């Protein structure tokens, strides 16, 4: 999918799929090529055993990026809600590393540990206890009164939505995508 082959039709298709403007797609494509070293796909650089996609092509790249598009000004309530859900779903999958539809305690802990790994003074145990606490909290928020024989197995997507209720993700989860003019500024 080199830039030479990216016909306008292709671009249009991508525009329809991702909602980016064609300018933005052009720009992202350049960036993509930069990252991939002019290959068609970006190879996964991390040597993780499982769970990671080996490579992504430009379309995947765009799809991922499209989650970070700002909301449109003319969206109505329903669209907003949809947009919010989509964004949150993306986030949810970042937590849910085995994609079983639940953020289990293990997964949550890993996230928290990584979050806190920047601070060398916080031990792993603390990170874990924080994750545990957060998990309990999530359980209480999402399930409320549990029956004694109930087990909270993990945060489901619905629960995730509940937790994020107080935060207007739709106004936060966005990144500025540059237009063509400004591309010279970055790299």
């Amino acid at each position, binding site marked *: 999918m080199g830039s030479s082959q990216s016909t306008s039709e292709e671009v249009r298709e991508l525009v329809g799929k991702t909602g980016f403007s064609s300018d933005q797609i052009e720009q992202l494509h350049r960036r993509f090529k930069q990252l991939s070293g002019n290959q068609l796909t*970006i190879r996964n*650089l991390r040597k993780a055993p499982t769970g990671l996609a080996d490579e992504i092509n430009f379309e995947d790249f765009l799809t991922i990026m499209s989650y*970070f598009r*700002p909301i449109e000004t003319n969206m109505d309530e329903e669209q907003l809600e949809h947009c919010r859900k989509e964004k949150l779903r993306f986030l949810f999958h970042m937590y849910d590393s085995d994609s079983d539809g639940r953020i289990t305690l293990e997964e949550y802990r890993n996230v928290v540990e990584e979050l806190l790994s920047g601070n060398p003074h916080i031990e792993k145990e603390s990170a874990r206890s924080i994750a545990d606490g957060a998990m309990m*909290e999530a359980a209480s928020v999402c399930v409320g009164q549990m029956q004694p024989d109930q087990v909270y197995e993990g945060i489901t997507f619905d629960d995730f939505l509940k937790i994020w209720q107080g935060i207007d993700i739709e106004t936060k989860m966005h990144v500025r995508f540059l237009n063509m003019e400004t591309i010279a500024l970055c790299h």
Partner: protein
Amino acid sequence: MLPATLPLLGMPLSGAGAGVADGAAGESVLPPAGLALLRWQWHEVEAPYLVAVWILVASLAKIVFHLSRKVTSVVPESCLLILLGLVLGGIVLAVAKKAEYQLEPGTFFLFLLPPIVLDSGYFMPSRLFFDNLGAILTYAVVGTLWNSFTTGAALWGIQQAGLMAPTVRAGLLDFLLFGSLISAVDPVAVLAVFEEVLYKVYNSFVEMGSVNVQAIDYVKGVASLFVVSLGGAAVGLVFAFLLALTTRFTKRVRIIEPLLVFLLAYAAYLTAEMASLSAILAVTMCGVGCKKYVEANISHKSRTAVKYTMKTLASCAETVIFMLLGISAVDSSKWAWDTGLVLGTLFFILLFRALGVVLQTWVLNQFRLVPLDKIDQVVMSYGGLRGAVAFALVILLDKTKVPAKDYFVATTIVVVFFTVIVQGLTIKPLVKWLKVKRSDHHKPTLNQELHEHTFDHILAAVEDVVGHHGYHYWRDRWEQFDKKYLSQLLMRRSAYRIRDQIWDVYYKLNIRDAISFVDQGGHVLSSSGLTLPSMPSRNSAAETSVTNLLRESGSGACLDLQVIDTVRSGKDREDAIMHHLLSGGLYKPRRRYKASCSRHFISEDAQARQDKEVFQQNMKRRLESFKSTKHNVCLSKSKLRLRKAGRKKDGSADKDTPNGKPHRASNLPDTAAVILAVESEEESDSSETEKEDDEGIVFVARATNEVFREHKVPGNGSMEVCPSPRIIPPSPTCAEKELPWKSGQGDLAVYVSSETTKIVPVDMQTGWNQSISSLESLASPPCAQAALRAAHPLACAPPRGDELRDPLAALVTPSPEPHAGFTFAPSLAKAGRSRSESSADAPEQQELQPLMAPEDRGCLSPGTANARWLIQFNRAGRL
């Protein structure tokens, strides 16, 4: 000073003051007879006395206002204060016949304004502020310029048009000056800072006289805008740095910490004022800049002191200002009325504010990703309340330079009254009517904090991927810089260690739990008491708190070993850590809990359990012989929780209630079922004759007890009263077994003696153990943690700092490896094992074990890993 400026005030108040002064002058009775019995020394104390009385009146007024919630919910406080000021001013006028009152600008700027500004700066939500920095600066700078220019020019226009009385002698420059001061919004808003800057520039122009102003001076004026504002900000930041640095070294003199905060902030203000820079900006920046480090450095008490003092000072200053404002309105000699000017000003400030907001918002929306919508704009246009700053600035004018000062004063008073009273009264209904999304002050939750942090990282990563260095990128950069250098420099080591936002929220929530527990009182045993050190207990006000339920998650119906396991291990570790952290504050509540815990141990909910109990009976012998299963340990604890929850439900704090026993019985089967399940899995692998000093056994002692108790239950309900001999563990006491290091602690011995364990019913023993373990971790030397860390390979693992930021990898599938912990768990077990063999009696070692075990389990991946690990561990034990 204030009283000096209010000579009049003394007169009406002197009556009231005299009564008090009698008491105060009581010392003067002491001099021997022959002299005057009572000497009236009013003049000696007049100045400070009046200040005190003044503030007292203001405070009392506040109290009175707040007596009625209804009034304050409708009428803003500033309105009431101004009205009160009007009344007071009327009285003063009536008594003194001549209204000689002046709010001296010196008083205002040197004493009244700094606390207000410091308060708003220090408590400004920095995250929100910086997230919207662009918009805020635009509105503050451009908006102010716009307002002052347009208002000033328009007023000049109507003067030229002859709509004002000819006595208003003012040129364009004067009007511009007036426009700059009248465009000052409410002083509490940080946005007000820029008005001051502009005012200063204009004022210097006016003082030069319009004829002397050269073209170059205008250029200089523009330049000085930047000099004044940026210089003020720089001064503020320098002082913020100094302040943070100073508080780093106050460890031994905690008492001066609050004072330092105020002194240095005030010094920043005065310094900026001295250099004729923007003092408001300086003190705001000082507050914003230092907060993070100061809060980390100073003690908790100092933090409270700072908070209260700051709020008190600001509130006092505000009250005084508004009352003075009211009084000054009565004093008609100070102002001159001109209808044209007043109406014109009112009209123009409203018009141009709205216009300015719309224009600026339009421009901003071209750049903002989240546009400001119409409702925001309406509120912003309408919300431009003018307040004390405008008033003080107009008073500050020099009458010789600005001949129309009296007119300006009158107009300002009217404008302030109009905006504060009319707009202030109506803005709330307006906001409600427009359904503006108001910031809801929900309590911070741990999840939210975590998610937001993750989110920041993700956004920074995505910006990286896109190749655009935007706001998130720079914030991330700043945070890295802050972490690497600033925090290291400005925070004391101990503070820096635990200073992390996530940790902070966690910590605060725990503190809150603790406090709420203490507040609940000692006799009422709440379930939160038991789970006190652990985060989730926050939610456990309700008796069937999820916390408890989570912990007892091993239930017959839904047997999920992973869940049980991880949760349990989390709890143990959490306890250990949090106990250390909270040791000071929590000691008392925990003791209390301990007592009550042993007292009411039973009441449980009635449910059908009998069927399981039969089975249990059959399994009894096997259970007895089986000594080391970690699952049992988990269960014992979870059971404890369960019981607790049940007790809570019961509502009766007393465990000896007759209906308590059936309740307890009812709850047990669930856990029992788990025990059985676990055992059947493991029995073949684990040897029944494990060495007593094995790590597993440390836990087993209690677990076994737990199991025993299970058997007792069906047999006789009187078990609480007379424990069967079997309950007593073969080796020392179960408590000692479990907490080997505890034996050295004298103060604990009371609760832990073997005598106690024998007499106390078995199920209570669990409670004992629980409480002891918590006490233990309180009392255990801090080095335990360190030792644990050293022994723990996990903790030594290199930090994976940038994992989330790793652009693509993180994006595509940010999967942390769930099996990380498992790989070394066996080796760890071996390590622990060999150590305990080599020096079984070393207390340090023993300390490690209970802490380690849950740790290891926590690392295990779900599924079979758990069982496998156990097997390996047990083998190691047998070797």
